[in-house]
């Protein structure tokens, strides 16, 4: 029934329409300029999980780089030509055979946008935000991942000025792969920790 359709005939949701109206007002009153709005759009579109995959793949093949990534993630990003500039800190946490990390922002949708771009819709959902801290193991199971027996699950609630990304473990059977092939194994979801990179040959 069209009565219940959330979009109007132009295909614009009420939220998008509201944002457009606010944007028009900000431009009209000189708070923002059109080039500034375009700059922000370009900034955000230049960022994607591919950046995270590059960082992870390099860390897998280069121990010194891995140390830098874990101690100063912005410096590590700059080294690979990824512009990490953002007011918030950027911290990478390492999965090990003992600890599996999971990232959430219960208060809103804090995410390392300067590196990974916009978060997936599910990351912003009330469902994920409330359940990732309450029942992280059930949530990961729904993403098709179950940490092996004896592995501690460590949830990071990014409540303030730090944005987190997971450095997953390198899957077995990938010893001969080069950096580019390895990067293709690193999924966006594994950078949040709801799953892990997989290699079918392993």
């Amino acid at each position, binding site marked *: 029934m069209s009565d219940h359709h959330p979009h109007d005939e132009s295909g614009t949701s009420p939220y998008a329409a509201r944002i457009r109206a606010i944007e028009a007002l900000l431009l009209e009153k000189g708070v923002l300029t059109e080039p500034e709005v375009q700059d922000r759009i370009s900034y955000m579109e230049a960022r994607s999980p591919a950046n995270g995959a590059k960082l992870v793949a390099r860390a897998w093949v280069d121990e010194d780089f891995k140390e830098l990534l874990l101690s100063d993630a912005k410096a590590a990003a700059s080294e690979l030509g990824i512009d990490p500039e953002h007011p918030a*800190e950027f911290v990478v946490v390492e999965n090990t055979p003992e600890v599996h990390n999971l990232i959430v922002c*219960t*208060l809103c949708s804090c995410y390392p946008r300067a590196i990974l771009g916009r978060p997936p819709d599910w990351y912003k959902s009330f469902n994920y935000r409330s359940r990732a*801290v*309450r*029942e*992280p*193991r*059930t949530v990961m199971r729904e993403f098709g991942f179950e940490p092996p027996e004896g592995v*501690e*699950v*460590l*949830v*990071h*609630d*990014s*409540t*303030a*000025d*730090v944005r987190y990304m997971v450095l997953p473990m390198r899957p077995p059977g990938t010893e001969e792969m080069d950096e580019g092939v390895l990067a293709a194994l690193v999924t966006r979801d594994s950078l949040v920790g709801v799953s892990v990179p997989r290699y079918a040959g392993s």
Partner: protein
Amino acid sequence: MTFEPGDRVRVLPAEKPGHVRTPGYLKGKAGWVESVLGEFPNPEELAYGFSGLPERPLYKIGFRQTDLWEDYEGPADDCLYADVYEHWLEPGEGGST
């Protein structure tokens, strides 16, 4: 900095209206200082157009999941880290180690 890594702390059970960065599920809960993250402008003031100065110390606080949720689904080793500003913390015993 009032606290050091390893100190036992409790999150204040305070109710403060408006923008705060301390989630409700941690209020009144006991944990430990995992690390000192630095000093940052107070987000509770930044949100309303103020400077947020002086900067406030921010800590990474560790909690046992079993201290947060009575019926937690996983093993007792599972933990949660959250970043909490100093003015939301008090010295506190209790909770697991």
